[in-house]
């Protein structure tokens, strides 16, 4: 079965499937419908309330963290799957590691869902005092991550020095002295393998003791301050971008029917890269002659280039132009096509004050199969590669 058929089958299946929670849906709908009638009246009151809440909630959060850093102890422990490293508090040791199932995908450990072969991984720790005192003292560090997470668990709490929120909750069972919830979002460095920029994740630091609960609580607090983000909990640097309203002509080329203009310009409130074809804009149907795509700064950052294609059906021979944006240090772009000699074009638009440069290929025969687009620096070294339209012949239907 090919990918088209697989997609149709998968997406089509939901038509007959029940929706979880459908039972109370009409009641929720009625409540929402009634709310609509009250929205106008409520708006003014809401704005006032928001202002008050901002004062009440935000101001305390801006205060410096009150967490005392952990005293450096004899050893460190790393829990890579959950993105933290801990310098053990003095006098405490790891009694045991909690194991879970994780799946390595593209260098990332993702929760076992369905991709790849799941493997056991350390997902939590149980710490105990070396001396055995306080009696029955134990601190566990576990993780809660699923889409049901309720972020109200942080409301009214504090922030660590790095801004991560935390809050102490009372113990939930006899002997439990309390539980700290620590916001520990998962930023995958390979964003695509995660399905989004962040995954919700909370670290729970839970303490229990038969006596001297306050001492255990103090150690828990030090742990909360001492957890150090590693691997997937470190926020990747944001790729450079431009204001949404920016409009810049990067360059022009071609002639007659194949003349083009490469721009960065907004559409529908987003900024994007566009290729305009003046001949078609003048002679074609309304709306023809402009190909716009929203910017993908992260793709450009990761791959070095970000390539679009245009099928020039109005031109004799109706070839294809490949164009796009590249990181600013990219001096030239090489197109490698099946059965054809590699073609290299220089980038342009370096003088426009943007974080990127642009490139446009010479005419490529349609139905070509592109192997890769290679970003080259000024010395001709490969500094990035992209596999656009992988598996599809250029200008074939989707």
């Amino acid at each position, binding site marked *: 079965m090919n990918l088209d058929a697989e997609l149709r089958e998968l997406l089509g299946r939901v038509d007959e499937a029940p929706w979880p929670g459908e039972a109370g849906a009409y009641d929720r*709908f009625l409540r929402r419908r009634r709310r609509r009638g009250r929205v106008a009246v409520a708006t003014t009151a809401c704005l006032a309330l928001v202002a008050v809440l901002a004062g009440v909630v935000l101001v305390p959060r801006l205060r410096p963290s009150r967490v005392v850093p952990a005293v450096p102890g004899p050893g460190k422990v790393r829990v890579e799957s959950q993105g933290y490293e801990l310098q053990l508090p003095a006098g405490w040791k790891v009694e045991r590691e909690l194991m879970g199932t994780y799946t390595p995908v593209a260098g990332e450990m993702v929760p076992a869902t369905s991709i790849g072969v799941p493997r056991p991984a350390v997902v939590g720790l149980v710490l105990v005092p070396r001396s055995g005192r306080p009696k029955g003292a134990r601190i566990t560090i576990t993780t809660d991550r699923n889409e049901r997470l309720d972020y109200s668990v942080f409301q009214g709490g504090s922030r660590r020095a790095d801004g991560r929120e935390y809050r102490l909750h009372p113990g939930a069972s006899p002997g439990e002295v309390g539980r700290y919830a620590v916001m520990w979002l998962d930023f995958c460095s390979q964003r695509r393998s995660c399905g989004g920029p962040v995954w919700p994740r909370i670290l729970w630091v839970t303490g229990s003791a038969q006596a001297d609960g306050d001492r255990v609580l103090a150690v828990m607090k030090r742990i909360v301050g001492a957890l150090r983000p590693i691997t997937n909990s470190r926020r990747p640097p944001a790729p450079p971008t431009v204001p949404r309203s920016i409009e810049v002509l990067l360059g022009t080329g071609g002639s007659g029917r194949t003349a083009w203009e490469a721009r960065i310009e907004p559409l529908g409130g987003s900024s994007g890269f566009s290729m305009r074809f003046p001949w078609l804009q003048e002679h074609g149907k309304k709306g023809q002659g402009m190909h716009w795509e929203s910017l993908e700064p992260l793709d450009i950052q990761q791959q070095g280039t970000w390539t679009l294609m245009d099928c020039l059906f109005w031109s004799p021979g109706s070839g294809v132009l490949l164009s796009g944006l590249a990181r600013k240090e990219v001096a030239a772009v090489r197109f490698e096509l099946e059965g054809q000699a590699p073609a290299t074009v220089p980038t342009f638009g370096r003088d426009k004050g943007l974080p990127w440069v642009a490139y446009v290929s010479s005419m490529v025969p349609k139905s070509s199969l592109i192997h890769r687009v290679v970003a080259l620096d000024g010395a001709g070294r490969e500094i990035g590669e992209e596999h656009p*339209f*992988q598996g599809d012949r250029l200008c074939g239907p989707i």
Partner: protein
Amino acid sequence: MAVDDAEFREFFAGEYARLCWLGFLLTGSGAEGEELAQEALVRMWWRWRLGRRPADPARYARRVLVNRQRSVLRRAAVEARSLGRARPAELVPPADSERAMVLWEAVKALPPRQRAVLVLRYKEDLTEAEVARLLGLPVGTVKSTGHRALARLRQRLGSPDLDPAASAPEERP
């Protein structure tokens, strides 16, 4: 109005799950999907009540939902915002094989616009021009976004044996 309400309720019962699933497929989130469906149905109800019932209410509701999703797409911090409230358990479309589950994970991992194009093309069976109108994009953008999405799926699935769509080239910029 009572008759209208009964009629609308029947429509609601028949379409609710489908709309939620469509919203879910577009956003990858059960909560977002249900939110979109509820919002589309409220708008639908007002139209119904004002005596402007569309000829094809189901299609109209889907269109409202997609338009709503389009405005959501414009917001930069969709994920950050959605993290700020409780969400229902992670959903997966009904799938009876590991392959289907893997495919779903790959679809879910696509950027929102790419996922929207695939869902509208492969689930709603819309033409490229219809998808373009609905998403407010040039046809060429829809085409290349779709290609990019399929390429990304193939890359994720690691399945070079999948047949690329090799039919006649379509002539659009």
